[in-house]
């Protein structure tokens, strides 16, 4: 029931309701409006940030094993902290490379929500809204594709490396992520099928065009037009020289070495290649953070996969002069309980968790928020003592403000008004001022 955006339709509903409760409408027809809307989309241009790379840590990365350690305390991990140039930014010992980049990062220690269920919390962190089964919100990448992407760009405006597809909801399928499930490997169906070359495909498509003519005339001009546009985009991508940006073959060895090995490292290089080419939104997933057991060992290993590629990405973007226009966000869906289980693991804890941002001209070299000695952040009465809490919606409002999204525009989903960012939120000015 993804009703495409249309202000007209809602006005129409209002008018019709007033006129004796008689409403004429068709969701089929609304498709045409969405196509129209696409053409006139007002895109945010007054933003210093041109690209966003989201590093999403699936499973709920522990704050106590990453950026908010409590060494020597009963809730702490047996990890050492690394002192950095930034006061309060003391990551776990495994962050050897990221520790050197502290001055290029901003750590938020006080992310906070109420959602402790993986799917609900992932939805919240990815969209800025709690899930509502009657409405699909777009995820960060789709919002950026819609607000900052060029609809005529040869490459997709939102590329998701690893992880499940997350539809763009009311922003329409054109802002869906282009999902690459195995980054670096051959992308499925992007090449001509066996025995088919460009010439033969052209012949087939010419046939399609001919065989559409009667149908378009009699039954569905709009449908055929939309179908054609999508096929043209797909064909353009198949034949585009830019598609090599999805692969690593022409990436110099020394760069590949700098990022290190593994799927996450490869994804980080591809993200940089895409951003360099003009793709506004990239999301990379790193899973495995749901450490109910054996957390000390597992978090150490995960940081091992994360540290070098992430730091290399920052270095690489800086070298190419792209860091100021590229915001890199690290976060997961929630944190983990200060109390340890007897298997050295931790449960789900949305009360406080960390996010790390850098690039895009934000104010780096600082820490926002503070947790207490043991990390429970509760006074005797059970009230929260977390300093400067930032809700996921606050984070989205801040991103939207920095990127000049159309946050006051009323979008239409089904027959209800909806906004890119939840109105119940505040800007975290510290992040950029």
């Amino acid at each position, binding site marked *: *029931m*993804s*009703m*495409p955006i249309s202000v007209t*339709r809602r006005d*129409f509903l209002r*008018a019709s*309701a007033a006129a*004796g*409760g*008689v*409403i004429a*409408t068709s*969701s*089929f*027809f*609304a*498709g*045409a409006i*969405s196509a*129209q809307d696409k053409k006139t989309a007002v895109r945010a241009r007054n933003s210093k940030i041109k690209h966003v790379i989201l590093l999403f840590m699936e499973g709920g990365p522990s704050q106590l094993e990453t950026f908010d350690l409590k060494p020597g305390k009963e809730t702490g991990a047996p990890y050492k902290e690394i002192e950095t140039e930034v006061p309060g930014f003391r990551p776990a010992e495994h962050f050897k490379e990221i520790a050197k980049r502290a001055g290029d990062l901003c750590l938020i220690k006080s992310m906070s929500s109420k959602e402790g269920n993986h799917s*609900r919390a992932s939805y919240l962190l990815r969209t800025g809204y*709690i899930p*509502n*089964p*009657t409405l699909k919100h777009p995820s960060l990448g789709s919002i950026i594709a819609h607000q900052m992407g060029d609809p005529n760009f040869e490459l997709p405006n939102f590329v998701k490396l690893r992880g499940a*597809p997350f*539809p763009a909801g009311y922003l*329409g*399928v*054109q802002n*869906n992520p282009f*999902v690459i*499930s195995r980054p670096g490997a051959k992308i*499925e169906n*992007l090449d001509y*099928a*066996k*025995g*088919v070359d460009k010439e033969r495909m052209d*012949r*087939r498509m010419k046939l399609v065009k*001919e*065989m559409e*003519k*009667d*149908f*378009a005339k*009699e*039954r*569905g001009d709009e*449908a055929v037009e939309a*179908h054609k546009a*999508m*096929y043209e*985009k*797909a064909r353009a*991508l*198949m034949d585009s020289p830019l598609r090599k940006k999805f692969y690593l073959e022409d990436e110099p060895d020394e760069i590949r070495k700098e990022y290190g090995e593994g799927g996450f490292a490869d994804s980080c290089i591809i993200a940089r290649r895409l951003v360099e080419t003009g793709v506004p939104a990239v999301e990379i997933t790193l899973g495995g953070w749901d450490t109910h057991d054996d957390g000390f060992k597992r978090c150490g290993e995960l940081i091992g996969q994360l540290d070098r590629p992430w730091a290399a990405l920052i270095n690489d973007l800086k070298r190419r002069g792209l860091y100021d226009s590229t915001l890199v966000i690290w976060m997961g869906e929630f944190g983990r309980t200060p109390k340890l289980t007897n298997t050295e693991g931790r449960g789900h804890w949305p009360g406080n968790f960390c996010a790390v941002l850098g690039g895009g001209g934000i104010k780096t070299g600082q820490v926002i928020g503070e947790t207490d000695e043991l990390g429970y952040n509760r006074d005797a009465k059970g009230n929260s003592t977390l300093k400067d809490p930032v809700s996921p919606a606050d984070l989205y409002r801040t991103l939207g403000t920095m990127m000049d999204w159309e946050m006051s525009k009323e979008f239409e989903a*089904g027959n209800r008004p909806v906004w890119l960012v939840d109105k119940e939120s505040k800007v975290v000015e510290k992040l950029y001022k």
Partner: protein
Amino acid sequence: MLRRLPLLSGLALASLLFGALSQYVVRADNVKKTESEEKQAAQDWGALRDGLNGLFGDLQKDAGIKPSKISDDETFLRRIYLDLLGRPPLPEEIEAFAPGRKDAEGRKGNDKREALIDRLLAHPDHAEHFADWWMVTMIGRDADGNARRYLRQYLRQAFAENKPWDELVRTLVSARGKTPENPELGYLMAFQNLKADMAGITSKVFLGKQIQCAECHDHPYEGWTTHDFEGMEAFFRPFSTGQKGEGENRYWFNNDQPMRNPAEFERRIKMKGTYKGPTFLGGETLEFEPNLVPRDALARWMTSPENEWFRNMTVNRYMAYFLGMGFVTPVDDFNSINQPTFPVVLEQMGKAFAASGFDTHFLIKAICSSELYQREVDTNRSNRDDFMYYSRSFVKRLTPEQIQRSIMSVIGVERLNQTPEIRNVPENKLTEEEKAHKNIRDGVQNWKNNLARLMRDAYGADPQMYEFGDFDGTIIQALMMMNADLLNTGALKNAVSDIVERYPSHRDRVYQIFMTVLGRKPSKREIAILEGTFANWPNKNEQAYYDLFVALMNTTEFITNH
């Protein structure tokens, strides 16, 4: 852009409707009927069909609209196959229907079409397709795999035996026991113990009441409060599901018991807070009763013939499904600012549906045999902008499930690789011939699994997409249809070879490819173009037919119902 239509005043409309549907008026207090009366009513779908034809004929006339023509047999056939079986008709099925002629039983016109509707409702593919449709509607495409498997199994069986809709929904909402004996548990299993979703989705899907926004704040215009939401949620509060066993023997269970005494009722359902306890939406609060599982009370209240939300929601969904547009849009959002286009018709149809014993076949037959369903998509000047009076049909995009079924059917992997029964014995006891058959059977299964995976990757898992209207599609879907090896080699080559072998003449081959993929004859223009194209084709053999087959599968016509 949407254009304003001439609107009738509510009063004029109401009087018109009562006239046309007067033979059909059923009073709500009179809906409890004896079994034989129910049967009688269920057979009366012809009266509802006539009522719809008469009423909307009058309305169209009144609005100065000349309706589109009634579709020809070929168009009707493909439309009804896609809607009822989820796939286009095969060439032999088209032949059996004898488009434009009398069928084997000597029937023609609407008699022939109505007989076909009956046959399709009894077709095994119908239960499969409706199980897909309803499973996605209820729990979406991304629910837990076991929940989907069990719910689908239950629905397939229920549609195969045409279980009354109230009974079906009651069974799902009050499901207990364990799998595999009680596959209906699949519905509630899908919500993974999230009670808020159980209440929210159940209200939305079966009653058309979207109360979930009241989970966090009062509903903006309905007056539902968070207490109303909690009242509905409370029915599900004692629900718990678990799993036992390992591997093959793993099963899911629920054994909710009645509350033993008021104190337990209080403790487990009312919990703390200020709301009143389990409360029927906009209605009474449930008090403790011995031997009562509260969820059962909810299921009974929801599906009662007196519950107009339940009746109307179902009618609206079937209208929208078949006609591309219901009386309320979006289909499952009934609220005070989203009034039905024709409230009285909806009301009357709802009552008739209840009186039929909630027989969905009653609705399907009446709707599909009516002129409303059978109109052409092609419009004239007077009805081009009709989005209300059903004077024309709409182009509907196929759902991913329909596309998958259609691809499977036109390529005919199962059809072209039929094998005899293979004895159920260990592999090493099979004869060589049986082993060969088994290889074929496994190959077919493998192909089907690969297609399912391709579809999943290309269409994502979003339950809310692809209901109607979305013609944009995605790049990934276009890439799949153009380039997937599965849709280019092996099975597809066999499908084309089969046609080329059976039909020696060029004309017959082209004809057969059109019939197989699009369910229609090629037009004169298309035949002429293909003559030219094929003359210039570099490799004027099987490959050219193969390219034509693929090209037709990549048309808008193939992925839409029209």
